[in-house]
């Protein structure tokens, strides 16, 4: 069994962190995992993305052409990667930064205002966690509890007080996705 997640957005939207969150959770439940970022100067002002591969056996390629699970946090990322989602896969769209609908009908997708939901939870910077919650609701690669345990185990001490808010953000994302997702035709 192998699943791949692809996350893209602007630098500073927590794209890399969200990917690492999935990676820690996958590792902690005994899976093989790779996390690979786009790296270098392009990250500073421009776009950032990372691919996470989660599997039961030795992982081959850390990159995949058509990932089944994709999160896009900004419009350029949707424009660029909508077509890459594997047919039947899941696409999570950050509606706070993207004002268009998804055109594909062969994938399950949800468009949710990650920034606003994160703000309601109490921290705008957790938009990435909201998106992660939404993704897991539509494709249960990991459980929300796996993520929670990983955050608890690996977040630096100085951030531990943010744990309840992160869990709340995950749940809000998941709830929104369950209610509003558009199923693949």
């Amino acid at each position, binding site marked *: 069994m192998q699943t791949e997640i692809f996350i893209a957005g602007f630098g500073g939207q927590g794209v890399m962190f969200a990917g*690492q969150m999935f*990676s*820690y959770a996958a*590792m902690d439940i005994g899976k*093989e*995992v*790779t*996390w*690979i*970022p786009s*790296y*270098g100067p392009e990250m500073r002002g421009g776009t950032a993305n990372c691919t996470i591969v989660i599997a039961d056996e*030795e*992982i*081959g*390629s*850390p*990159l*995949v*052409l058509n990932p089944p699970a994709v999160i896009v946090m900004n419009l350029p990322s949707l424009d660029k990667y909508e077509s890459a989602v594997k047919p039947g896969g899941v696409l999570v769209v950050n509606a706070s930064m993207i004002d268009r609908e998804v055109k594909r009908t062969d994938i399950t997708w949800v468009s949710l205002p990650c920034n606003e939901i994160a703000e309601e939870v109490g921290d705008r910077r957790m938009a990435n966690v909201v998106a992660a919650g939404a993704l897991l609701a539509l494709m249960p690669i990991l459980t929300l509890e796996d993520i929670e345990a990983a955050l608890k185990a*690996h977040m630096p001490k100085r951030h531990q007080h943010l744990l309840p808010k992160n869990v709340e953000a995950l749940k809000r994302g998941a709830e929104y996705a369950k209610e509003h997702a558009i199923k693949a035709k």
Partner: protein
Amino acid sequence: MKRELWKGNEAIAEAAVRAGVEAYFGYPITPQSELLEYMSRRLPELGRAFVQAESEPAVINMVYGAACTGARVMTSSSSPGISLMQEGLSYIAGTEVPMVLVNVMRGGPGLGNIAPSQGDYSQITKGGGHGDYFPIVLAPASIQETVDLMPVAFDLAHKYRSICCILIDGSIGQMMEPVKMPDMMPVERKVYDWAVSGAIGRERHVLSSIYLDVPTEEKINLRILGRWKEVQENEIRYREYYLEDAETAIIGFGTAGRIALSAVRAARAMGIKVGLFRPISVNPFPYKRVEELSERVKSLLVVEMNAGQMLRDVQTAVRQRIPIRFYGRLGGVMPFPDEFVNELQDLLKNPGKPEDDPVDLWYRRMMAR
């Protein structure tokens, strides 16, 4: 043992620390800089030597000096920096002192870019510096494999008084994977009968790569070659996947090799009987094993992130026994497994002749895209 998620460059640094590295010298260059940054924090904390030098020529000569004492010493860099070290590497080889070199390869030639590439295979396996010498080159494909090879690299360097290079690309340096770190080994400086340490209670030792007496230089060259023969005999490393019933096989090292693993699984799911041969020691290259493989399968697909540098070694082993197909991506492009699967399907349809030039066919197909 607990698994922890490590970034490649930092895991390599920590593995070297645990393997007892006593001194590290380096210069910043992407996509390797995290290794230097990690060492800048970690080594002073342990009372070991760290210097960020003013340039790569300075780095390699600091390494040269430290290596002459018999210490476990290493440096790391990426392609342009490694090119600058070639003079020093030749001196180190000529003086027969041990060192570990990590090359986190990036796209080239020239300044190129910072994306993953395998374009330095020939440079390190076939020379690069002047003169006849033979670095041991290990090409792992994952962070765990790299971590596991770090102590091996030091052991080999010291056993054979040789340069041992860990050859990886930017993707392994930059990605994260779960790693089981080995335990911390104590730093122990062995007493070597060749190292300089001050002639306390013994004859003095002189280390040099100058042998003005020509017959002596020839003898030294033969001694270096003799050690290399031992390395060839004893230090071949590789991994094989799904080869038992394979009718065709992919050969690739490092990242191209692991990408090929995905391709092999995908092809198997389509009913293609294909296996994977992944050399880990690319110098010495597992010629014999590839030769045996070529007697069992009907054709080979060689995949690399360069223009066919390891392909030459495969061809040497196969000696036109079966058709070989080549597929490479250049300049920092990382191939997807799907590209290898396509090649494989095409190879099965049109195996071609054993004497065909694989690079020629590949080049024409690349240009037609």
